[in-house]
């Protein structure tokens, strides 16, 4: 359990990072309170290792132990709240665009706040004595994990898909998937708080209490909506692939982004940047775009240089395969397989360490050729849009 609680923060902090990027991009504003965001994240990192007993308040450790961990569990809501306020203030006074990633982010903010509040309720040991392992707990953790981790995953997926694959995802199916998932989530999990308060425990194979039934049926209807949401999400991918020539991202910057990845083509060249950018502050790409007219007039090419790239290797997969074999064999005491897996993993590792050439060089001429092609494509797309005269 001392690992189990930090694990959920391992889940949620990357999602928070995604939201910081998405919210600032679609509010057309720099992220509010960067330093406090960093401090809040660090505070969450430290405090998350001090709360684990809240998973077993009912095990009988006594009031002082329960109180300390209960208070710590409540305190961790403070830096989290700081981050929520920062996202809200980023939106305030900005020009908000309701693209699909932003819809997921706004959905996250509402959903996660409700889930977080129920978490603080559970952090009170006497309350937890009644609610431990009840449906209230189940509703709480689905509330926070779906609200933050799942919505964050979908926000990031939609936001960065064009960068990775060179064409955007279909907007209409994306919005439909979002609404069905959001409403489906609420219809499924909000009713579950009530049976939890009425005494229903988790992991029940069947139940006989009539008072719980209307809530469980409502939740069942919600699962239908969620299933439709999942189906639409899958459908979105097929529709987007079918329409990919129309959805092609020619400029590399489909969202009018603020960070440096949007200064590359979609997908980026193997070396990412032809010349290492000189970064002097946040929202580096935004800075570049603001001086774009100036850059246009300058029209100078950068000094292209050779780029060293690491050589790809399948060693990771092969070594992991042997390690899995070894782990499986250790569980079932198949000693010959343990030896096979161990020797295989070690041999693969040594083979990788023995290679003489771990890098290759992309000549300056090739870098120049690829970069010129990307810049020309971007310029052509902007010309078409009438952006650059």
């Amino acid at each position: 359990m001392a690992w189990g609680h930090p694990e959920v923060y391992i889940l949620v902090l990357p999602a928070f990072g995604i939201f910081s990027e998405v919210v600032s991009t679609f509010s057309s504003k720099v992220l509010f309170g960067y330093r406090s965001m960093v401090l809040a994240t660090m505070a969450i990192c430290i405090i998350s290792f001090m709360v684990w007993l809240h998973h077993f308040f009912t095990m009988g450790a006594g009031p002082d132990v329960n109180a300390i961990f209960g208070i710590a569990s409540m305190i961790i809501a403070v830096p989290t709240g700081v981050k929520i306020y920062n996202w809200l203030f980023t939106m305030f006074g900005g020009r908000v665009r309701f693209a699909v990633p932003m819809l997921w982010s706004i959905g996250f903010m509402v959903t996660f706040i409700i889930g977080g509040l129920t978490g603080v309720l559970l952090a009170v040991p006497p309350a937890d004595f009644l609610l431990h392992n009840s449906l209230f707990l189940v509703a709480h953790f689905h509330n926070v994990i779906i609200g933050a981790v799942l919505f964050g995953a979908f926000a990031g997926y939609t936001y960065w898909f064009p960068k990775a694959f060179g064409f955007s995802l279909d907007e209409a199916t994306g919005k439909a998937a979002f609404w069905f998932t959001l409403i489906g989530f609420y219809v499924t999990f909000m009713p579950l708080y009530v049976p939890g308060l009425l005494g229903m425990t988790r992991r029940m194979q069947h139940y006989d209490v009539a008072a719980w039934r209307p809530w469980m049926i409502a939740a069942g209807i919600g699962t239908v909506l969620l299933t439709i949401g999942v189906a639409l999400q899958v459908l979105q991918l097929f529709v987007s692939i079918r329409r990919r020539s129309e959805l092609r991202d020619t400029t590399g910057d489909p969202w009018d982004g603020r960070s440096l990845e949007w200064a590359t083509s979609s997908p980026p060249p193997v070396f990412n940047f032809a010349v290492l950018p000189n970064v002097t502050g946040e929202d580096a790409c935004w800075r570049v775009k603001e001086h774009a007219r100036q850059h246009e007039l300058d029209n100078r090419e950068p000094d292209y240089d050779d780029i060293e790239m690491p050589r790809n290797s399948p060693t990771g997969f092969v070594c992991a395969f042997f390690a899995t074999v070894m782990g499986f064999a250790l569980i079932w005491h198949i000693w010959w397989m343990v030896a096979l897996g161990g020797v295989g993993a070690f041999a693969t590792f040594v083979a990788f360490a023995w290679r003489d050439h771990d890098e290759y060089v992309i000549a300056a001429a090739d870098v120049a050729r690829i970069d010129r092609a990307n810049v020309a494509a971007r310029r052509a797309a902007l010309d078409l849009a009438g952006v650059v005269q």
Partner: protein
Amino acid sequence: MSEQIERLHDRPDVAPGEETEVRIGPRLLGYAIGLGLSVLLTATSFFIAGTDLVWQPSIPVALVVLAIAQMGVHLVFFLHITTGPDNTNNVMALAFGLLIVFLVVGGSLWIMSHLNHNMMPMDQIMPMNR
């Protein structure tokens, strides 16, 4: 193309401040001092564990203190933890690791001793299982 790669491998891989020529003397002395202090601390630990000359209840505390001191000696003399700017990240990583160690070990001991204290004695639980 292979000469380019040769160039990559031969380029000295040093940090600012490390470019000066290596002199064996001071480094050897560093390891020797580390060894000497460690032997001293180890011998003291073994002595204290077995002797009657010390107030008995203080022995576990003394052993822990000596162990921490020796770990410090190893970190400084063998693992070269310094206060240099290039070492700051390593010190931060170590500090975080130590925080986790204290939280996990200390927290577990505290919690388990409370649980143990609050549990019914076994001779009252066993009859309930019949």
